């Protein structure tokens, strides 16, 4: 990652007081949004954190937001045959109630804006599952003018599920893999996002030219 960080054109993201610039928002809207960068929320120590991680892993609430064609695989996952509820997974209607964001396949620049905004609205600890080849390396849209190639350059990704499309079984395997990671204390990507915030924001702003999104709400 450090190589890529050096590649990035360093854009100005903060003012002298270390506040985000929120460039692109009209002046009257700037006051409505948080202008602080996200903070690292250090994990607790010992058994308490283990207990919390167990609780987090057994109750994954996904954001019901289909960002690509892969979202079609979420419907059979909810029904009786695959029954994701038995794993403690259920969909939620808003990012603020969700802890797991499933990126369903290709993400265009336009979708990326909504993905970033939704991801930032989610409360930590939050996890991202990249579903399908498109999130890994662009898949069949790898040379498109409008589709990103690597999701992990814009938001941190916990688990990738390769395939075009992966079946619901693969999604369940990915969710179980994610559970293992969380129980092992490796689900710290919300903190990674806060630590490398400038790098992520720089990458996002490189592709999103009309940045009229607030850098807000973590």
């Amino acid at each position, binding site marked *: 990652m450090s190589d*890529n960080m050096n590649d990035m054109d360093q854009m100005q993201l903060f003012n002298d007081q270390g506040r985000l610039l929120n460039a692109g928002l009209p002046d009257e809207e700037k006051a409505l949004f948080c202008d602080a960068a996200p903070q690292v929320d250090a994990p607790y120590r010992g058994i308490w954190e283990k207990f919390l991680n167990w609780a987090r892993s057994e109750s994954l609430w996904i954001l019901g937001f289909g960002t690509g064609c892969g979202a079609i695989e979420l419907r059979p996952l909810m029904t009786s045959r695959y029954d994701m509820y038995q794993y403690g997974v259920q969909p939620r209607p808003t990012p603020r109630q969700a802890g797991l964001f499933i990126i369903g396949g290709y993400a265009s*620049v*336009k979708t990326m*804006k909504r993905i970033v905004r939704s991801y930032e609205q989610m409360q930590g600890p939050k996890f991202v599952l990249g579903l399908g080849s498109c999130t*890994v*390396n*662009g898949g069949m849209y*790898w*040379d*498109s*003018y*409008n*589709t*990103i*190639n*690597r999701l992990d*350059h814009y938001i941190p990704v916990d688990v990738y599920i390769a395939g075009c499309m992966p079946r619901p079984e693969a999604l369940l395997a990915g969710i179980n893999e994610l559970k293992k990671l969380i129980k092992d204390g490796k689900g710290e990507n919300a903190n990674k996002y806060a630590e490398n915030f400038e790098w992520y924001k720089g*990458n996002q702003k*490189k*592709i*999103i*030219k*009309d*940045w009229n999104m607030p850098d807000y709400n973590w």
Partner: protein
Amino acid sequence: MTEFNELSRQFQVSDLVEQRADLHFITASKEHAVAVVSALKERYGYTHLVFFTVVDHLEKNEFHLTYMLHNYEKHHDMGVVVKIARENVQMESIHHLWPAAATYQQEMREMYGVEFPGSPGLYENFALEGWEDIPPMRRDFDTKEYSDKTYYPRPGRESHDPREYMKENLYPSEAETW
């Protein structure tokens, strides 16, 4: 075709092509195209705009705009083709004939850079947001190059010519006979 003969007396139209019994194409000059389309709608019953599109003929240095009209009474389609040069490409708007044409024109403006002065919402975003390069559907736009420099291609992707790859790896014993 009677419509064509009548139109050709009044407007600059040429090249009647009969694609099928129920599909004809005519070519109109840039100046007369909207008048021709308007006449087809008002006088000859072609009341439905099926689509309005543009094709980039880079080799001829031309854009070919196609108005596809449909006559419900005769069940007949009529395509009006307009050839215009690729530089500073501009065309008269037809949103006064079909309001839905404004959406086609908005898309053509964004994807091909064809200007339609006076068309409502022409400069609003259609599919792209904040696009800064040349319009992406123009054929001189190099998608691969743009993607490589913008979207961090993941190393390790390689592609093969399917024919050669199958020869070498899947059917080596039959390769001679191909």
